[in-house]
């Protein structure tokens, strides 16, 4: 075995050492699982979980990005079958020429299909289309005992299928999946943009108009204070039809131009993102947005993945990294949302990527995050003073409101709180124990939150 490698999540906090192997085939993955020692093994994709979900201190990490191969698009059944290591951005680029699009696209295209299912990721269309698990027709799961199981929502071991959707890689290694896709006429969206003056008007506008759009998301300025607390820029969109496009774009309506990514500087000083710099950025961003604009055609890539234009943007938080805090609270718990937004605004915690979204129908995955309600996701530099206490206070409010934290984002919650937020944890464990009785699959996240 090779020397251990230090791994972190996308937030670049709390590195731990593990032996990394990169299987190219299912057989190689099975062999690696077999070699796992007492510290266990966990699959890893492109490392976009913010916290410690794809780390296994002292153990083995299966880098699944090598599990690639041909993508099979079936126009009759409106579905695509792909190896689990396929990045979603590649799937997207593959499907667009056929006039098809992924059912769910998270905030970055740099995630593997396997990782997306293991975190049951959601996108800007969650209020209409639910999360990715709702569109998985089947998946292949390699279990720690070397079995290769074909699982679906309506056949085979359905309990294991749903334990795997959102199961954070702790039920086995997903090696391929079959995903439903939908038809699009163009590679563009028709976007409506509105600026809102405060949190109440943000919530009111979203509540009133959300159902009329396929995609909605609101960027919230968490540093605005006083009367402007919770002001935001709301974007809502539909897939553009051919007739929505200006004439020059109609010639090649499905042409997808992801654009060459820029690179973030390799190093940034700790504290570059502070109250002053982020506050200035947020104010500028807010005022740069149109007060009200309708029907603007916007390329898919830029709408879904603006940050993918900057490779390694996570480095601008400096050596101490950052944490992402994402929670969902049921509709009716707007007070909790208000408490968090006001708390962050008061604390002056410098967050410039705060995103508010309404969620719809959940999947049956016991560890799947989405629940109907409001979800807020925000980034904060890990070195912010008093952050641990501030977030712990929010945890309590979120829990009391019947809400929960997103495991793919978490890097700091405590086990008891998360257990209370996921009441189906016990039933998930029972399914897991069936396929992994020896507890081979384990991650830093699983240890920290005592999931297994």
């Amino acid at each position, binding site marked *: 075995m090779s*020397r251990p490698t230090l791994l972190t999540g996308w937030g670049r906090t709390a590195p*731990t050492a*593990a032996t990394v192997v990169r299987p190219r085939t299912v057989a190689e993955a099975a062999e690696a699982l077999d070699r796992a020692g007492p510290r266990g093994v966990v699959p890893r994709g492109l490392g976009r979980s913010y916290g410690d979900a794809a780390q296994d*201190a*002292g*153990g083995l990490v299966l880098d699944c990005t090598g599990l690639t191969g041909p993508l099979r698009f079936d126009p009759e059944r409106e579905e695509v079958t792909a190896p689990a290591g396929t990045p979603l951005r590649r799937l997207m680029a593959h499907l667009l020429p056929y006039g098809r699009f992924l059912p769910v696209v998270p905030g970055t295209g740099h995630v593997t299909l396997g990782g997306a299912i293991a975190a049951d990721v959601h996108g800007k269309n969650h209020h209409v289309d639910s999360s990715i698990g709702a569109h998985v027709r089947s998946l292949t799961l390699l279990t720690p005992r070397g079995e290769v199981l074909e699982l679906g929502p309506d056949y085979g071991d359905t309990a294991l299928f749903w334990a795997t959707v959102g199961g954070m890689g702790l039920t086995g290694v997903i090696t391929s999946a079959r995903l439903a896709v939908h038809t699009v006429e163009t590679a563009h969206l028709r976007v409506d943009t509105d600026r809102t003056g405060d949190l109440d008007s943000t919530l009111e506008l979203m509540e009133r108009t959300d159902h009329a759009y396929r995609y909605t998301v609101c960027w919230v300025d968490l540093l605005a204070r006083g009367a402007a607390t919770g002001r935001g820029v709301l974007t809502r969109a539909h897939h553009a039809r051919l007739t929505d496009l200006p004439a020059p774009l109609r010639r090649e309506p499905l042409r997808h131009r992801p654009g060459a990514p820029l690179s973030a500087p390799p190093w940034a000083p700790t504290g570059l993102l502070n109250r002053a710099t982020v506050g200035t950025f947020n104010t500028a961003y807010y005022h740069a947005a149109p007060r009200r604009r309708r029907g603007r055609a916007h390329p898919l890539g830029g709408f879904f993945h603006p940050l993918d234009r900057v490779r390694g943007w996570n480095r601008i938080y400096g050596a101490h*990294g950052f944490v992402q805090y994402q929670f969902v609270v049921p509709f009716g718990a707007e007070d909790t949302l208000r408490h968090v937004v006001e708390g962050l605004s008061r604390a002056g915690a410098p967050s410039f990527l705060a995103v508010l979204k309404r969620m719809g129908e959940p999947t049956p995955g016991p560890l799947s995050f989405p629940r109907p309600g409001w979800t807020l996701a925000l980034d904060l530099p890990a070195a912010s003073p008093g952050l*641990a206490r501030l977030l712990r206070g929010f945890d309590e409010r979120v829990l009391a409101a019947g809400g929960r934290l997103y495991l793919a984002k978490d*890097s700091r919650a405590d086990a008891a709180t998360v257990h209370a937020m996921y009441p189906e944890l016990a039933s998930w464990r029972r399914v897991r124990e069936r396929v992994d009785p020896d507890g081979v699959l384990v991650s830093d996240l699983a240890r920290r939150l005592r999931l297994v």
Partner: protein
Amino acid sequence: MRDSLGTVRSVLLLGGRSEIGLAIVELLVREGAREVVLAARGGVEETPAALTVSGAKIHSLEFDAEATATHTDTVDAAVDLVGDLDVVVDAFGVLGEQDAYDRDPGTAARAAAVNYTAHVSVDLAVAARLREQGHGALVVLSSVAGVRVRRANFVYGSAKAGLDAFAQGLADSLHGSGARVLVVRPGYVPTRMSAHVDPAPFPATPDQVADSVARGLRSGATTVWAPRVLRPLFTGMRLLPRPLWRRLGR
């Protein structure tokens, strides 16, 4: 497991009655640690009040610094109690009096063994465990007394000098393993252990040392001085000519 904001779950204190060690543990518990092992000879019967009310689970463990052959078992026993060791605080030691050491060389050698060789064996056992688990921090209580050894306490100072050098080497050997060592160099800290020595300039309370340690653990430092001013001060001290140092260092 240390989380992204530096909160740890488990702490092992070697020298379970050390005032500085307990101050560090208390601070880590205030910040969220849930499991504590206090290791000392005969175990630690009386848990300090600050820890009892914390809600953290406090375990007592037999640890005999002089029985170096048992140290690996001690570390294993701590792992059996709490699982992965997130932070290990190595804080045991004896100060003694130079005059007494001068009169009884045997006692001096025994004190030197407790202050140096005992740490070698237990810290190596800890390091092996941290390397295996792929994460964790070992906090080693060194002292400015070992930075430049004074005639007034050179038995103690020389052992601390050895320990400090050992801990730095250990830190380098753990580089890249996910585990790390934090060397702490306090100055004069008024405690039971130091009650018999004259106060020195720039004293620090155990709580201040604990604050420095917590800061060091958060920032990823390899060395912390408590108080911070001792670092530039001792950089100068090291450069003093011997005749002058001899007179100063009574």
